[in-house]
């Protein structure tokens, strides 16, 4: 039952300063929140983050000063709480380079890596300033002569994905929306899973069509029940709006952010301490 299971502390330590990380989930749903908090606790720096629509995860790492660059289509708290304050501040103050994407160009960049290509064509973008601003180049389609935008490959060092179920080898089942997690797992050099539940391998053999991530792609598995909180994780819990609001109240200063991180530390490590037999 050990296999690839390590503690949250150990898993976050796999990430080096400067790494490009793809974060699973979308907005406030099934985000790798416990992992992201641990990266902040470990004071990781200069991370580059890839995500279609980010919220708490991207903003918290910006608040912690851990982010050099983002490649995202959207970062915000929707109509719940509006703009992402630390992401905003980081970009406006020039500490965070926000590479402007459409969600579809993030996907195209991930597809390029997943397909072993230097870049991937993408439809759309006509009339938008995004392509020129970000520097997406065009080629002439060799059959029609039409110009086509190409998005350069995005190859994360790790896809960090929070899933419903995993086994010790890294087979993983997602419940509810998969978002771009499956594509991220293929585009990344390797995958780190945090999982609500650790199951025996027989659980996956029973419904192999439900295994979204095969074990051979996965480097590490962390047992992290509640690991998407304060986001939601189907079918276990919903978005905790009060807790998201409490984060936003804390994100304005280093001290209050540390208080926020401290307030989660026990919950974040509860599963992996139990699984690995050592408190982080």
């Amino acid at each position, binding site marked *: 039952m050990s296999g690839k299971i390590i503690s949250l502390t150990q898993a976050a330590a796999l990430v080096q300063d400067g790494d490009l990380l793809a974060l699973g989930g*979308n907005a406030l749903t099934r985000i790798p929140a416990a992992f992201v908090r641990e990266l902040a606790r470990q004071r990781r720096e200069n991370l580059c983050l890839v995500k279609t629509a980010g919220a708490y995860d991207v903003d918290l790492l910006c608040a912690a000063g851990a982010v050099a660059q983002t490649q995202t289509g959207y970062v915000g708290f929707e109509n719940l709480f509006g703009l992402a304050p630390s992401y905003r501040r980081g970009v406006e103050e020039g500490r965070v380079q926000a590479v402007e994407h459409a969600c579809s160009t993030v996907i195209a960049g991930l597809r390029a890596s997943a397909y072993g290509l230097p870049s991937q064509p993408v439809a759309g973008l006509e009339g938008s300033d995004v392509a020129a601003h970000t520097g997406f180049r065009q080629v002439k389609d060799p059959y029609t002569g039409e110009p086509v935008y190409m998005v350069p490959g995005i190859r994360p060092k790790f896809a960090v994905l929070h899933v419903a179920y995993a086994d010790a080898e890294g087979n993983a089942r997602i419940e509810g929306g998969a978002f771009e997690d499956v594509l991220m797992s293929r585009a990344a050099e390797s995958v780190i899973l945090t999982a609500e539940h650790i199951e025996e391998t027989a659980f996956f053999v029973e419904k192999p069509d439900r295994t979204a991530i095969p074990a051979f792609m996965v480097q590490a598995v962390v047992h992290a029940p509640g690991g998407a909180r304060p986001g939601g994780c189907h079918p276990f819990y919903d978005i905790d709006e009060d807790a998201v609001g409490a984060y936003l109240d804390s994100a304005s200063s280093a001290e209050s952010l540390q208080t926020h991180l401290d307030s989660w530390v026990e919950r974040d490590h509860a599963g992996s301490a139990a699984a690995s037999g050592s408190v982080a």
Partner: protein
Amino acid sequence: MSVALREGVSEEVRATADRMAVFLSRFIRDGELVFHGVASPLPMAAIVMARNTHAPNLTYLNIPGGVDPKPPYLPGSTVARQLMEGALSYFTLTEIFDLSARGKLDLAFLGGAQIDARGDMNLSFIGDPAAPKVRLPGGAGSAHILPTAGRTVLWRTAHDARSFPERCDFVTASGNVEAVVTPLCIFEKADGRLRVNSIHQGVTPDALRAATGFDLGDLEHTPATPEPTPAERTALEAADPEGIRLREFV
């Protein structure tokens, strides 16, 4: 939460939210594939409502990927798991972009922080994009969807001159915009420019002009937007009894 939300907003805001949801729903034609994205309570309410009124055969697509879900209640995040409940199949955002790219997405609702005289929208930067005064959240899928979807309808809950400039500070997305729904009017795009199609009840042409950063031309013969009918009000209330649509106004 919802009771608090209702108590926290004025009757006027409430009326505006109801109008905008109803007006958005009127753009949905029966049988269409209809999509909304992140941060979209008004379109969410409009789609669920339309399914129970004039468009029972629409197919409802969203970011979590539930095809035709029957959400038990409308969530505050429009990327929440409730939008998969009762779905017939799962269809990821990636698939929705592809669907639109190949010309098969009929209608998408997209928001903009700025919407300009050409119907282009900005969700990226206020001020100089190289050193922005405000870093906005980003356009999500809009740069892809606007030019590829059959039709798009934009909305914005604030109607003022900064939100409706002659030209956006940055064009996040441009494309097949059919109409723009605001608290004051409905624009339609014709010959590459937004024109006022109808002005909501109680809004004067002068007030509309004052609130808009681009020239509106002659408004003398512009009709009034038909108010929500009792049937529409009932359907909206049934679709969104908790008033999640009000979230766009607080």
